[in-house]
């Protein structure tokens, strides 16, 4: 059913884009597989949106090559836009059109569109179909925008900051819908600066900073690899020799913080630590375990938090 037998949906190689001497994108290469949710995570100004705008043919790259389902976004724009649905940041619609009228118009652009009522219900604005766009809240407008990206039943959906401005429940609903759409075989590119969103949804994540990809992997794999893994903190029932734990293959470091002991490692870290201590007659109390997060990975890689403005 696809024209392209290859499992690769999008290939970006050595993409470069410069705005008035500022390199928005320096050198970005990656591959998106068919049917995956591919995340692009990074602070504002990192080059995520510019990369995506090159992929959907909105901008001319200054260097590199892009292939989307075998199409060149600069040459085959019309063919591309039939199979790629897009949600842009900051796009609005006329105040005096009703939501159903906007959906109905966009629906007419595609040969095999989705049912607008179903889409609206799944995204939680079914009751707003008959209302003027003007009367919608920011979050509802955002969801209309996501619906318009999906109304053509695209093979690839590109969503730029899709849950910005949504309340927690709407975020969860939107995430659920995106997972459902992925399960139907749609490839999704998700641009976000929400760690939580990337961890929850993405099969793979590219961390982007200063126009470059600084890491690319499955969210947890990436976090573990970059930060050195997970950690467990506990209060031992009595003093013990650090070598006891350091000898374990799962353990990397052992550190004393007051009465607490912090052990960093990987794999089945908690089991290994508890069993070893128990064998030696020591109980681990107040156990607290943390997996590495993408946030940790980002801090480790860039030396700052993702919501801090990057200073050049």
């Amino acid at each position: 059913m696809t024209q392209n037998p290859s499992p690769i949906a999008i290939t970006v190689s050595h993409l470069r884009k410069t705005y008035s001497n500022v390199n928005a994108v320096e050198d970005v290469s990656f591959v998106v597989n068919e049917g995956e949710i591919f995340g692009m995570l990074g602070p504002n100004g990192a080059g995520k949106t510019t990369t995506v705008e090159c992929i959907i043919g909105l901008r001319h790259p200054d260097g590199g090559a892009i292939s989307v389902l075998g199409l060149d976004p600069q040459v085959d724009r019309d063919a591309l836009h039939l199979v790629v649905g897009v949600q842009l940041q900051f796009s609005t619609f006329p105040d005096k059109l009703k939501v159903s009228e906007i959906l109905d118009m966009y629906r007419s652009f595609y040969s095999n569109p989705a049912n607008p009522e179903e889409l609206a219900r799944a995204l939680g604005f079914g009751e707003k179909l008959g209302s003027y766009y003007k009367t919608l809240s920011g979050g509802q407008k955002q969801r209309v925008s996501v619906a318009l990206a999906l109304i053509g039943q695209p093979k690839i959906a590109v969503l730029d900051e899709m849950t910005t401005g949504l309340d927690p429940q709407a975020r969860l609903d939107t995430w659920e819908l995106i997972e459902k759409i992925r399960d139907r075989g749609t490839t999704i590119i998700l641009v976000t600066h929400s760690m939580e969103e990337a961890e929850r949804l993405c099969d793979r994540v590219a961390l982007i900073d200063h126009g470059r990809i600084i890491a690319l992997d499955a969210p947890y794999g990436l976090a573990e690899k970059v930060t050195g893994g997970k950690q467990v903190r506990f209060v031992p029932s009595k003093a013990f020799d650090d070598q006891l734990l350091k000898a374990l293959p799962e353990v990397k470091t052992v550190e004393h913080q007051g009465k607490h002991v912090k052990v960093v490692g990987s794999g089945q870290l908690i089991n290994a630590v508890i069993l070893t201590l128990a064998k030696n007659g020591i109980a681990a109390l107040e156990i607290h375990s943390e997996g590495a997060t993408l946030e940790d990975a980002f801090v480790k890689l860039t030396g700052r938090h993702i919501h801090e403005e990057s200073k050049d």
Partner: protein
Amino acid sequence: MNNTRIKTPQAAFGKLLLNESRLAWRIPIGAGMGLGLPLLLLIVFGSIPAMRQVSSDLGGSSYFALSFPILIVTTVLALSIIVMPRSLIQYRETGILRRLSVTPVPPSSLLAAQIVINLAIVVAGLIILTVAGVTAFGLELPKNFPAFLLAELLTVTSLFALGLCIGAMVKNDGVAQGIGGFLFFALMFFGGIWIPRPLMPAMLLNISNWIPLGSSVDAIQRAMQGLFPSLQSILVLTAYTLVFGYLAVRFFKWE
């Protein structure tokens, strides 16, 4: 799955046009400025007996009769350089054109829909004005009807090209309103709204002949009297159409 082409481009354009009509109906600035204002002026001018007096200074015509071509041009002017550019600029400012440019339907379709809608209002306005002028205020029907239609056509093409040019180049809604307002009154002046063309000093009349509105009013006036538009006015209006049209296409910014 066969999403390899647009279902029918006509269907998509139809929906675009439908939504533009809804907007024109729900926010009736176009109808107000293009239909309401000229109709109001027609009623006011037609109700003042002094304005309907025939005078030899005016070449055997009356102020009222001379104002009719100007009211026709006002309708076209309001929609072409005030209403249409504002819509286009708002569509660009709010990202509507940009959003359309990532669908299978090119954003130029929205431009086309805007032209069609505003033209439709112009045509309705011209019919209402002409019918009202003739039936209610005793204006004579144009003596050379084909010439009358040609003059109106050239008026529409030159002013719509000018309006598209404004919509293409001006980025900001406020600036567009300023430019539109200024041009509206400047062009009306040269068209003869305050000093009818037969009373204009030679130099002013000469300038008026080279200005879009002056040549439009001249062409319509001649058609009313049974004459064909002068070659100069035909050439001037055609030239404005081509030049403004070219500039609009050349410099149109989609974002």
